[in-house]
């Protein structure tokens, strides 16, 4: 990423005189584009402001990691690291199960990889497990970072995350809600955890991928 096209802005900052360049995190008033957020402004065709903090708001299609916090008749209530709870209906479970046997499949505290199926205007969040990639997480660890750091952890076209998977010898799944599932050897997972927290801390800096490669080389060298 180029140093020149990113800049820290605060709410109300004038970003452009052209209303059509208004992107995410911006608003238009009197034909001019202003920032809605405290974050990094990205000047492309459109101007987007990427927040540096904030809560995850679910959107349809997001792959996320949730934890079962309650079971009601025919619904699991899922904590999705957001102001809003997710609802996983019994019919969204891949196999047919009885309402009185729900806790046999997903009990309180179970972690699941799930997808947001639909969000309505009152923020009722419907989840689904109907995909082979989705389901209960039985092994591995889960780390939580701010969801605003997720794009940086994935990198441009997945460059960062594929590098991490290769270098760390771990299976990593990044939920859009900022929860990350890591599965691998105990030592590899320790390093993965450290690396992810480092990426979270330095997410807004330039040349991060190269620095992380160096960091991993050094850490691995110390281990051998």
């Amino acid at each position, binding site marked *: 990423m180029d140093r020149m096209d990113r800049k*820290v802005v*605060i*709410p*109300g900052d004038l970003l452009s005189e052209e209303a059509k360049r208004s992107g995410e995190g911006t608003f238009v*008033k009197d034909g001019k584009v202003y920032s809605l*957020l405290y974050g990094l402004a990205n000047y492309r065709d459109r101007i987007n402001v990427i927040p540096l903090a*904030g*809560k995850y708001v679910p959107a349809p299609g997001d792959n996320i990691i949730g934890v079962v916090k309650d079971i009601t008749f025919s619904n699991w209530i899922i904590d999705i690291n957001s102001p*809003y709870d997710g609802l996983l209906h019994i019919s969204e479970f891949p196999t047919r199960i009885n309402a009185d046997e729900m806790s046999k499949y997903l009990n309180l505290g179970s972690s699941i990889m799930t997808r947001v199926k639909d969000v309505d*205007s009152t923020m009722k969040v419907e989840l689904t497990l109907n995909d082979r990639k989705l389901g209960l997480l039985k092994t591995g660890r889960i780390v939580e970072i701010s969801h605003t750091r997720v794009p940086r952890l994935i990198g441009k076209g997945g460059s960062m995350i594929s590098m991490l998977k290769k270098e760390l010898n771990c299976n990593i799944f990044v939920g859009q809600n900022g929860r990350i599932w890591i599965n691998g050897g105990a030592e590899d997972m320790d390093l993965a955890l450290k690396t992810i927290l480092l990426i979270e801390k330095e997410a807004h800096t330039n040349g991060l991928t190269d620095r992380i490669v160096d960091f991993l080389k050094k850490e691995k060298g110390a281990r051998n």
Partner: protein
Amino acid sequence: MIAMDESNISFFKEGLRLDGRRADEPRPLKIEVGVLARADGSCYVEMGGNKVMAAVYGPREVHPRHLQEVTRAIVRYRYNMASFSVEERKRPGPDRRSNELSKVSREALEPVILTSYFPRSVIDVFVEVLQADAGTRTAGINAASVALADAGIPMRSMISSCAAGKVADTIVLDPMKEEDNFGQADMPIAMTPAGEITLLQMDGHLTIDEFHQAVELAMKGCRDIYEIQRKSLIEKYNHLEAEPVLAQEAEVL
């Protein structure tokens, strides 16, 4: 000027105020962003003798449930004075005065917050006055506005707040305790950098001309405060950006 005769205070010495300021000069302002690890956004402000801490939580689930709004987030603002913030120990807990300040401060900030982005949720703002020296509500609003930005809450603009007052028949900016207690008028305002006023209170007496003069002066104070709010927010990340680069260079050496 009865109060003045009784207290026998002269507010000006050789054209300067008791603390050495000119009439249109604000007190020194210090703003620190992100000082609390547990809050989603936070800010510490020193405005002259005032020391104020603001913490923002949310958007989060509303408790109690019946306060929830289906189409938008609600904003709760709690202004609270620490018992040790004033000379005579203040009885802790909410009272008439802090309830009123909580309400007007909330209404000063709410117009710029995009509450419709977070239906059925709440944005909690807590403002603790650690040390009071007149103008705690304005210091609290300044801190809360920065803390809201720090929490990543979408806002149309920042809010800055400043008071003007009248002492010894002169309009002064940002009155301190002595001027507030024994002066003729105190008028706090809050506004956006574009000049839209979201809070305007006054006690004491001002003529219409004096009132206009005081609003102008307080607005000038707000604009200066806005620049400091802005600088402190931007510095938080420029500072962090410089650090890792330096560390890397040190390794090379």
